[in-house]
C-alpha cells in the first residue's frame, strides 16, 4: 500500500505526517478556509482527507465546502483538486478515474466530495450513472440536510417538518411536508460493493468507513451527518453535540451496506427523546405536537426497517456494537 496513506492501522489518530511541523500544516485540508465557526462539514473534510492520504484526486461539486475552500487565488486543498459545476461531480470523477487508468495509474483514488444538494437533487442523475458504470470513485456526501451556500433552502435531504427558506413556516404551510430521500438505500440498490452512513461526531467509525470504502475497486458511497450551525439554527459550539444526539435519538443511524448486506454499527441502548435534539435547532422550533408525533413515527419505522434489514431479532434490538465510537455518550 502506498506509504503516503496515513492511519493505516485503524488507530484513531489523524493528521500524522512525516516532517509535519506547524499545526496549520498538519492536515490535507488547510485552515484559512471561510467555513462558519463550528462548521460540521469542514471537519468531515479534514477527517476524510487525512484518512485517505495524499494519493487522491478530489472532485468537488459546487456548494459550501467548495466556495469556502477555493476562493482564487487561495485554496485550502493540499491534494490535486478539480471543481467544475454543481451537478456533474460524479461524471467529472468518472472521467478523471478513466484517464488515470488510461495512464496506467491504478493507485490514485478519485474522491467526490459533495453536499446533499448536489447528491440528492441536481446531481442525482449523474450519481446514478456513475454507480451503474462501476467507476472507481469514492463518493462522500457531507449531509447538512439543506442548501447551505445559497442561504438555507430545502433539499431532498431535508427531513419532514424542518423549516428552510423554501419550506417556510406560515399560516398555511409549516415546514417541509415530505420525507427525505433514503439516499444510502437508493445508492445501495445500484448493487455497489460498499455504502455507509456515518456521522462527523463518531470519528473512529467514520474513518474506518472511509478506509473500507477506499479499499473497494469500483464505486463506494458514504453519507455523513454533518450538522450545519447556520442552516439548522444552533451555535457552532454544539455542532458535535447535535451530531451525537442525532444518533442517540435514532434520527440518524450508523450502518453499512456491504454487497447488499446491512450491518448496524451502533445502536444506543437508551435512546434520547426526540425533543432534546429537535429543541436545540431553530429549524424545528415551530413543530406542533402532531408534527413531532409524525417524526417519531417515521423514526421508529426507519429504525425497525433497519433492524429487519440487518437481520437483528427482537431480543437483540438494544445491543451495542463491539466497535465503540470514539466518544462514549454521557
Amino acid at each position, binding site marked *: 500500500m502506498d506509504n503516503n496513506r496515513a492511519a493505516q492501522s485503524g488507530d484513531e489518530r489523524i493528521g500524522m505526517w512525516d516532517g509535519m511541523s506547524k499545526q496549520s500544516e498538519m492536515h490535507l485540508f488547510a485552515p484559512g478556509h471561510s467555513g462558519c465557526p463550528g462548521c460540521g462539514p469542514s471537519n468531515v473534510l479534514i477527517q476524510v482527507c487525512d484518512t485517505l492520504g495524499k494519493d487522491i484526486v478530489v472532485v468537488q461539486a459546487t456548494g459550501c465546502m467548495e466556495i469556502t475552500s477555493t476562493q482564487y487565488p487561495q485554496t485550502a486543498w493540499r491534494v490535486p483538486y*478539480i471543481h467544475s459545476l454543481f451537478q456533474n461531480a460524479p461524471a467529472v470523477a*468518472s472521467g478523471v478515474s478513466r484517464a488515470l487508468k488510461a495512464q496506467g495509474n491504478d493507485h490514485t483514488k478519485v474522491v467526490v466530495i459533495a453536499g446533499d444538494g448536489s447528491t440528492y437533487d441536481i446531481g442525482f442523475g449523474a450519481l446514478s*450513472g456513475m454507480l451503474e458504470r462501476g467507476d472507481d470513485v469514492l463518493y462522500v456526501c457531507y449531509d447538512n440536510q439543506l442548501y447551505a451556500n445559497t442561504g438555507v433552502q430545502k433539499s431532498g435531504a431535508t427531513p419532514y417538518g424542518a423549516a428552510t427558506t423554501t419550506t417556510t413556516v406560515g399560516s398555511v404551510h409549516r415546514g417541509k411536508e415530505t420525507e427525505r430521500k433514503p439516499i444510502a438505500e437508493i445508492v445501495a440498490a445500484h448493487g455497489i460493493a460498499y455504502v455507509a452512513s456515518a456521522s462527523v461526531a463518531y470519528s473512529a467509525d467514520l474513518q474506518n468507513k472511509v478506509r473500507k470504502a477506499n479499499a473497494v475497486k469500483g464505486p463506494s458511497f458514504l453519507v455523513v451527518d454533518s450538522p450545519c450551525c447556520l442552516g439548522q439554527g444552533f451555535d457552532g459550539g454544539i455542532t458535535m453535540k447535535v451530531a451525537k444526539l442525532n444518533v442517540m435519538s435514532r434520527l440518524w443511524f450508523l450502518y453499512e451496506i456491504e454487497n447488499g448486506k446491512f450491518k448496524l454499527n451502533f445502536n444506543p441502548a437508551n435512546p434520547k427523546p426526540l425533543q432534546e435534539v429537535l429543541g436545540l435547532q431553530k429549524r424545528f422550533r415551530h413543530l406542533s405536537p402532531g408534527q413531532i408525533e409524525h417524526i417519531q413515527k417515521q423514526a421508529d419505522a426507519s429504525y425497525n426497517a433497519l433492524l429487519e434489514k440487518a437481520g437483528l431479532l427482537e431480543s437483540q434490538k438494544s445491543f451495542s456494537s463491539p466497535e465503540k465510537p470514539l466518544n462514549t455518550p454521557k
Partner: protein
Amino acid sequence: MIKTVEGARVLAEAAVACRLDVVACYPITPTTHLTEELNQFYADGRIPEYLTVEAEFSAISALIGASAAGARTFTTTGGQGLLYMHEPLFSAAGMRLPIVMLVGNRAVSSPLNIWNDEQDTISQRDTGWIQIYCRNNQEAVDSIPQAFYVAEKILLPVMVCVDGHYLTHAVEQVDVPDEKLVQGFLPPYKYPLKLDPQNPVSLGVYANPTHYQTFREDVVADMEAAKEILVEAGKKWGKLTGREYGLINAYKVKDADRVLLSVGSVMDNVVMVVDELREKGEKVGALHLRVLRPFPREEIAKALEGKKVGVIDRDLSIGAQAPIYLEIAEALNGKGAQVSSFYGGLGGRGVKRVHIRELFEKLRKGPVKQWITTEPPKAAMKG
C-alpha cells in the same frame, strides 16, 4: 487511405487516428453511428477508455475530468444533446481544457426535428469553443486532427461541425488519414497543470469580482491568437496531405461581383451553381466560412470588400437579424459591400441548387432580407 463508406465511419477513424485516451458519448441522432463506430474501436482495443454516460451533460463533464487528468478526449453529439451540454461547454472553455467534439448539426426542439440546420452550434457561439464547419466529409476528417493540434496548443476546446444526415450519413469517397500520418502531425498531449498528487493544484476555482474578468480577458485574447494557430495547422496539414486549410475558403471570389456565403454542406451546392453560372459568363463566387469562432473579421473584409454578398443562415436569432449575417455585415461595415440576409433551410429543408440560383438573382438588386425555402417539400403536407 481512400475509402467509400458512411461519414460516421470515417469520422470515427479520423478521431481514433489521433490516439484518443478517453471517449465519453451519449447517442443521439444524427451522430449515433459515430458513437457506435467509436465503441467498436474501443471493443477492439484501439481506444483505452469509453464511458457510456447517462446524459450528454455527463459526457462533456467526464471529458472535463479526463482532460484535466492528462487524457486526450473526444465526444460527439448534436441538436438537443449539444443544447444539454450548454452549461459545461462554458466550464470546459473557462477551465482551458483542449477537448475536441464532433457535432452533427441538427435542428432544435420544439417542435422536435432530427434533420439538419445550424441552430445547435450557432447557439453555442458565445461559449469560448473554437468552431470549425465542414463542407464535406473530407474536410471533416482533415479537420479533426487539426482540431486537436489547435486545441492543445492554445488550450481551448474545439467543435468540428458537420451537417447531420447530409454528411454523417453520406457515403462519399474520402481519403482517411492513418494513425502514422496523424502522429507525424500531432505532438503528444501534455496538460501543463494536470491533476497529479505530485503537484497538487486546485482547478476550477471560484473567482470574485477582483479576478473573474482577468480570466475572461485572457480567454478572449487567446481565442484571437487561435486564428494564427488554425492557419498554421491548416498549412502543416497541407504539406502532409496536399490539402491545405484556412479560416475561410474563397471559391472564385476575387473577381466576383456577387458572392454567397454560409457554413457547412450547403456550400458544395453553391460551388456547383457558381460553376454553372460562370459558364454563362456570370461573375459569381462562393465563400465558405470554415471557422466561425474565432470570427475571421479581417479575412472576410479583405475578401468581400465592395461586393454584393448574400449570407445564408440556416439558423435564427429569434427577434433579431440572422446571426451569421450580423457578424458579416459588421465586418463589411464601411467596406463598400452590400450584404443581404437569407434565412431558412431549417429542420431539414435543404437549400438546393434551384434555391441558390434564385439567390444569386436576388443579389443583383439592392440588399434584401428574407426567408428562403418557404415551401415545404411537396409530399409532406397531407394533414
